[in-house]
């Protein structure tokens, strides 16, 4: 084949490969796009019901910089206002994400409106290398009141992860107090 024809042949084949892959990716994206979005929503709803109880429902969802808070909100991404079915506001839930050398953590921290105190935390993504120890030794005791959010986590078996969770929840607490001020 003359040189020129070879170039045309090559570019046609490569064009074919590129378009085949583009079509395949576009198709699979269509097939999975809403399922992924649904997964995300399910995770958030599961977190909210875990914190505020069965009949809690998200009434408003704002990104943190819409509140224009003065304090540092580097971990927080979105704030959910939660109401029960009689439409009375139960409290706020903060979606925070952070990572350390052991991996990424993303959680929902719930705060009660009437008592203005921390209620519960629910982990959404927990890629810590000692993930199960973090949940057993820190998150569960924190949720059922054995541990207080302000005292420093010590020999918890996953201390780095616990410190990261504590830092994120305290930041969310400051944000909640400033919003309700």
């Amino acid at each position: 084949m003359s040189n020129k024809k070879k170039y045309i042949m090559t570019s046609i084949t490569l064009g074919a490969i590129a378009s085949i892959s583009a079509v395949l990716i576009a198709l699979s994206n269509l097939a999975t796009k809403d399922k992924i979005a649904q997964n995300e929503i399910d995770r958030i709803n599961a977190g909210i019901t875990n914190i505020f109880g069965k009949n809690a429902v998200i009434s408003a969802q704002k990104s943190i910089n819409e509140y224009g808070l003065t304090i540092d909100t580097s971990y927080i991404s979105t704030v959910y206002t939660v109401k029960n079915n009689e439409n009375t506001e139960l409290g706020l839930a903060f979606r925070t994400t952070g990572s350390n050398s052991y991996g990424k953590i993303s959680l929902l921290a719930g705060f009660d409106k009437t008592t203005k105190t921390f209620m519960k935390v629910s982990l959404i993504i927990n890629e810590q290398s000692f993930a199960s120890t973090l949940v057993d030794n820190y998150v569960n005791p924190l949720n059922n009141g054995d541990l207080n959010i302000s005292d420093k986590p010590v020999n918890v078996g996953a201390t780095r992860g616990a410190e990261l969770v504590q830092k994120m929840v305290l930041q969310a607490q400051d944000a909640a107090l400033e919003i309700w001020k």
Partner: protein
Amino acid sequence: MEVKKMKREKGYTRKNFLKGIVIENPLFVSILGTCPALATTKSIEAAIGMGLLFTIVLICSNMLVSLLRKLIPEEIRTPAYIVIIATFVTIVKMFTNAFLSELYSTLGVFISLIVVNCIVLGRAEAYASKNNVFDSLIDALGMGLGYMLALITMAFFRELLGLGGFTFGKIFQFIPLTTLQIIPKGYEIKMFQTPAGAFIVFGLILAVLAFIKNRKAELKANIEKREKIRKAQEAKEAALKAAVNNGGNK
């Protein structure tokens, strides 16, 4: 192209499938794809998940590569294969994120790293670009299964020693959560769940395989030596007998 002309002797497909599992096991024999092997074998479920995703990508890319093997010009083989593999990895990543989101968050970056996994690119260049679609499929199945079995062996030791038992149902949520605790809770060696443990398990498995190989070589060498000695004795006896006969009839 000489592979095609060779008459396909019986059982070529069986041998082609089994070579991936034992003779040319991608992880323990040709030592490829070590990054995901060390990182995703914290639990048997994660290893099975990684093995499955890897096999799916390998099968799809092997088949498409061997489908287009006549069209892709020789000079730009590798770029075309990289694009094909990257496409299938993206598709697998999307479906895992949608339907097995727990597996997606456990494996994390290592699903995308299948693109640079040496086995996929190696099989595409070494085998799929020279054989027809069916053989490439069988080869991919063998290699994928071999790699998954290797991952499961690694994960077996790391999870048994590191966590003291096996948990199923955490990643594949459709299985009811079952925990098989063998070593009592406080007595497991947590180090095996850390990276250092992965290195040790991988090193020890390779050492055992090397030991078996050396032992087999030694046995074969002994047998040959004994053969040689027996032959030499027979030759001597024959020579002796011949000498006695000559003596007899002088």
